[in-house]
């Protein structure tokens, strides 16, 4: 009985807090939650020639490990940022597409770069640091991909 309880807890925890590798691989759109912290930072760059103001969201994946993820605002030809203001119901509805960077620690870094965070996917950052009255800002971003192809 004790073991069954443990098993249930383990399964429940797994289902509640992270997706499997294959689940993430299947996603076309990925939402990544961001909170400012010691290892997760955002950098606002100076305005560019065309008025575009770029920003990086950097996740230091394994803290002291050098591996990291870098997302930048997607630059559209019209220079308009793709921004959404969403509430909790949106997050609930898209729960399966929300991937926490911390949950990726169990996977190989190059596998993530080459298979999970490929260029064919659409990425959004949910910037919790801009949360106002339970309204969250979501930015369309590009992933600075560092998959190393073999030639």
């Amino acid at each position: 009985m004790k073991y069954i309880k443990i098993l249930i807890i383990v399964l429940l925890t797994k289902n509640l807090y992270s997706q499997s590798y294959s689940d993430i691989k299947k996603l076309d759109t990925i939402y990544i939650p961001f909170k400012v912290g010691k290892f997760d930072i955002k950098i606002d760059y100076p305005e560019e020639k065309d008025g575009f103001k770029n920003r990086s969201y950097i996740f230091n994946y394994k803290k002291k490990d050098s591996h990291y993820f870098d997302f930048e605002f997607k630059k559209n030809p019209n220079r308009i940022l793709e921004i959404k203001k969403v509430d909790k119901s949106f997050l609930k509805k898209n729960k399966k597409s929300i991937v926490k960077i911390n949950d990726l620690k169990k996977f190989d870094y190059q596998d993530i770069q080459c298979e999970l965070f490929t260029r064919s996917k659409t990425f959004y950052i949910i910037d919790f640091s801009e949360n106002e009255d339970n309204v969250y800002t979501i930015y369309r971003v590009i992933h600075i991909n560092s998959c190393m192809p073999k030639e």
Partner: protein
Amino acid sequence: MKSLKFYLVSIIALIFYSCGNNEEISAEAAPKSTTYTENVNAEELLTQLKAREPELAQFIEENPFSNFKTNKGKTDYYLDLEHIVAVKNNQNEAVYSIPLYMKSDVSSPFLYTLSVAVNPENIYTNLITKEPLDNDTFNYYGSSFNIYKKNSQTAKTNLVDCYCTKVYTDCSCCSIHASAGCTHPAVIVTCGCSGSGGSSGYIPPSVPTGGDLTSWNGGLNSPTTYAPTGDGIYIALRKHFRPDYEFTPLEKYNIINQPAYSGKLVDFLNFEKSTPINKAFTLQMLKSMENGDFIMTKQLTNSINNFIYSQKSPFNVDLNSIFENASAAESKKFLEIYDALSKSEEFKKLFLAIFDDNTKFNVKFEIVDKVYKQDNPALEEVNANTSDIPGTDNYLIKLNKKLFQKDPNFGQITIENAKTILHECIHAYLFVKAKNPAIGMDIETALNISYPSKEEQHNFMADKMIPTMQKVLSEIRDLVTTNAGRIEVQQRTIHPTINPMTSTPWIWSEYYKYLSLKGLEETKSFMADYPFESDQWKLFAKYIEYGHQDLQL
């Protein structure tokens, strides 16, 4: 002379006799016209000759064209018994035209036909010489024919006004020729009248020929059009070669009797121009036709395309596998990129000395569904690889088909694919240089050093060849990116360092450098120069990503 005159009179009479009658071409047409043309086998002629002219029959039988190459014949004449055409009438008269080739005729523009006219009373032989003219027709000359004369030089002797060599017509041209010339607007290809444009009527290829029946439109003199008959192709090909070269009898035979193949050679010269090297290649292809190397026209088309691409590129390329699937999107994209690379002076400079005019080294390209590291399916899938084919000086470059598709893992933009193809070509270069250091030029950064083993090629590339790759990419940039994409990426501001924040505009030479280093991340020098998460590494990653985002074609 008397017999010749009689012959000419009789042949013209035979033609004239039919004037005004409708030509029968189709077997379904009825009733049979008084004069008609048909392909006949040698047996029909020989049966008649054996009874009445046994010596001539024996001569014809013993000198088939198949003996030409083996030198079995005792005379200078070889007869193509597979392509005999007869003009017949309902008076039991017939003129048999047998294509004839002479050993001694090593360099002349002429085509020859042995004409055997048979009627109930007499049999006449005559050698007809066909002289191709600038107006895409033939002049016909008749001369006596002596089977005992081993080397009978024909040359131009007696001009024959009209002569039916292949297919019969109503010959209205002949009836008015003496006074007004052949001015008829449409002639069914059959009779040749000197200067008339008769038998080898010049028609555009688009006109359906309907077997031997075709229309003569006349007046066309474009180098891209020709009569899709053996004779028409011969005239067109010869125009490309003269005055430097006249075809040998064997070449003439193959041009005339393999029009499906020889026509492609005219198209090739029309489109690629009759440069000396293109003409040399054409002769090479004629030799292959003679040797029976081609079973289907596609093989010749592939050879021509390979040659065209090899000419434009600095080494011999074998693109057969790509041409086999030429309409596929990936093949088209590959060829576009390969064309662009071939236009780069640096690319040519690097490879020219090593591969050009050197038939020893060949590079074969293949686009395949999957490419594995070290060609081992148990290992990971890769973008591309280059291998040396053991025991040869041939190299095989395999490109992953997914590179040219919107594949999430392997899909690349055009300039990235150009870099991958360049990267693989450099592997081929290094294979050759390692085995043959004395061949070709040395890259400036690699003077007085030895070339690397297969395992060391990536390190060598990262250490020594990035400037070369940068230069090639700079030379082809505008061919593999769009103007809009270039404007877009040039709007970017780059931040080489974050702390302190520094900024630069987009620098193309930096982009070429980073693009060239892509795929070399595991080399010693890359890891030393671009430690992971260093500012240098981040700069590298951003240049690549910005290029990928903005420079998509």
